[in-house]
């Protein structure tokens, strides 16, 4: 029994060495998969040639002498080709245990050494740092190596992410920070929801933001990464939060280009509320940047552009609503657009941008706005004729939307909207009929 356990422990640390050798030899691995042992066997299909990772890189000059055959990856556990790595699910448990053990040991040593260094700093300062970088670097590279293996196997092992932050915060080499972006991107490619991985990226970006000359490029790449990951897993809240978080790092031009890019994406993913939310956030930020901290005249000059942007978004959203029947995210977006439209552009209300002067070609009229929305509403009711569930959903969403818009127009303004909104009484009946399980809600909102 004991012999067997010791044997398997030895075996698992050998597997870990092999994994770390693979990772060290090919820093460009961009995909990791955990697959069933029989699948892995099939992939390796007798040709062990693809397993010769030492052919990929020769950076391992010093340790290379050490037992090359031990480092030769076990073909029933690993498969690697074209920077893609597959690991047998059967090996996950022993690999995880070995990685965790190696990581914990390395971190303990690193912390011990670091404590000694900081305590004796004053006495030996120069000598310590000059003595041998290699021996001082050893524990930290061990921490980096083992935490990487551990995180590839178990992406939510927070202490391993933290250990990397600790090492990096003492080092400050820009290239090392870039490596962190690669590692977390690799992990996100198969664990797209990993909160720890997203958090780690934000920490990296925050840390380098003051020192990095090409921030704009990094932010662009970051945004693209979110798009790729959002493509693989729809409605990924953490991913889109990350993209929203990037906005304050963007210049106006970049925000405008993000709006253009995300438009195409949104058209292909009309149910993904997160993408529409990203657009809302961009639009609000553009308004803020154009207006809040500027002089009123400056803001005034921007009104035609902003008006145009809003008008186009409203029209675009309407086109999508008419094309894709019963999509909640499109109506959520419309609620937002109308709310801001009424707040900012409708002159006879509290419109913040309307001041006294008028811009030619800009309609500030709430009546014509409402007229259009009612047209849309009626058009959506006719879809009811078909028996599909989507038609019913569309009618419900349209009716709830009209209720929403009516609540955005302050009653104190004494506007003659009664003609249009007289139908509100009928609206309650309609909503109760369309969506009876929300009867208490409609009652609460309209009593």
């Amino acid at each position, binding site marked *: 029994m004991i012999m067997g356990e010791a044997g398997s422990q030895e075996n698992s640390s050998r597997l870990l060495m092999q994994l770390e050798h693979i990772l060290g030899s090919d820093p460009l691995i961009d995909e990791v998969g955990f697959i069933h042992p029989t699948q892995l066997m099939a992939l390796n299909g007798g040709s062990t040639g693809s397993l010769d990772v030492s052919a990929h890189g020769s950076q391992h000059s010093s340790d290379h002498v050490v037992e090359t055959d031990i480092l030769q990856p076990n073909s029933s556990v690993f498969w690697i080709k074209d920077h893609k790595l597959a690991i047998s699910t059967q090996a*996950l*448990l022993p690999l*995880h*245990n070995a990685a965790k053990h190696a990581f*914990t040991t390395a971190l303990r040593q690193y912390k011990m050494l670091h404590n000694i260094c900081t305590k004796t700093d004053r006495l030996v300062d120069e000598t310590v740092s000059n003595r041998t970088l290699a021996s001082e670097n050893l524990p930290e590279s061990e921490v980096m190596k083992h935490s990487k293996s551990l995180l590839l*196997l*178990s992406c*939510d*092992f*927070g*202490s391993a992410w*933290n250990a990397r*932050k600790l090492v990096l915060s003492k080092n400050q080499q820009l290239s090392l920070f870039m490596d962190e972006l690669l590692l977390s991107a690799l992990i996100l490619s198969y664990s797209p929801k990993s909160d720890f991985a997203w*958090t780690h990226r*934000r*920490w990296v970006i*925050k840390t380098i933001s003051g020192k990095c000359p090409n921030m704009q490029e990094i932010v662009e790449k970051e945004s693209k990464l979110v798009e790729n990951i959002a493509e693989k897993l729809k*409605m990924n*809240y953490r991913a*889109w*939060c990350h993209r*929203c*978080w990037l*906005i304050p790092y963007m210049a106006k031009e970049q925000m405008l280009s993000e709006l253009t890019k995300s438009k195409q994406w949104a058209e292909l993913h009309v*149910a*993904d*509320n*997160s993408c529409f*939310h990203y657009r809302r*956030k961009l639009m*609000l*930020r553009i308004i803020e940047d154009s207006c809040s901290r500027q002089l009123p005249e400056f803001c005034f000059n921007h009104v035609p552009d902003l008006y145009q942007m809003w008008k186009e978004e409203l029209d675009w959203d309407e086109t999508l609503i008419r094309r894709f029947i019963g*999509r*909640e*995210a499109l109506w*959520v977006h419309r*609620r*937002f657009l109308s*709310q*801001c439209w009424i707040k900012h552009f409708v002159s006879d209300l509290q419109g913040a941008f309307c001041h006294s002067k008028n811009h030619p070609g800009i309609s500030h009229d709430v009546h014509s706005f409402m007229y259009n929305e009612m047209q849309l509403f009626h058009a959506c009711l006719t879809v009811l004729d078909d028996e599909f569930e989507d038609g019913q959903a569309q009618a419900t969403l349209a009716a*709830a939307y009209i209720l929403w818009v009516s609540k955005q127009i302050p009653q104190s303004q004494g506007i003659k909207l009664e003609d249009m909104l007289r139908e509100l009484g009928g609206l309650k009946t309609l909503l109760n009929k369309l969506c009876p*399980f*929300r*009867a*208490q*809600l409609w009652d*609460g*909102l309209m009593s």
Partner: protein
Amino acid sequence: MGELEMEKHVRYILTIEKKKDDFVSLVIEHLRINGAYWGLTTLDLLGKIETIDQDEVVSWVMKCQDESGGFAGNIGHDPHILYTLSAVQILALLDKLDVLDIDKVSNYVAGLQNEDGSFSGDIWGEVDTRFSYIAICCLSILRRLEKINVEKAVDFVVRCKNLDGGFGSTPGGESHAGQIFCCVGALALTGSLHHIDRDLLGWWLCERQVKSGGLNGRPEKLPDVCYSWWVLSSLVMIDRVHWIDKEKLARFILDCQDKENGGISDRPDDAVDVFHTYFGVAGLSLLEYPGVKAIDPAYALPVDVVNKIIFKK
């Protein structure tokens, strides 16, 4: 409609602890303390907390404490505010808060407040409204709310409010039922609910209920038992719970039970886990299901525990 399988859920929770060495339990070992909180609270709501060895739990929880005062998700891991709240809630549940160095824990939590009133999750500085709730809840249980700048903390939460009435994880973040629970909870515990437009937020929350009766967490998502807790507790706190169809929701939760082996899943016929078992039972508690103890929507602890600890009743 079936009944709530209380006995089976109790048995299910008591057996999870025994499975420790498969890969799945390994990859979640870092949040074992959250799991302990979910399991123990469920047991208490079902009136069976005395079936576990309380001293064993307390001594294990205390081994998760770091020298900083914060708690880790398991022995030997790094501390985080997420796990610190679970530790404090477990000790409150077992009426063992006296084993804590209250000032040490509350200093750890208070030390995570930032200049703008927000809270970091740990020393590495990630900000999220979840952490605001956790800090406020933790310090309320420990009766040390005065250690933070409550006004600024509230300001930050209010800055995360969206035009749709909901709240996100940071200013401008998308509204999400889980984040809304945290923000409403933080405002409730600090007596700041006047910052909320109850009709507007109530509307958003009620639109989470879908035809099957279940609740989702955001527009266009599938219903999921865990939102029974996040949406319902928020509705209770803003006094709009009468706007949803409670009966349909209760039926949805009951349909997610594993009637053979116990436990509750996210949706009917999915695999059960302790997380959804807790949220299902807690949801039924808010729906006043007979035989389940009442739970406090802000503290996420049984009402009798809150009364004893907070109000010294």
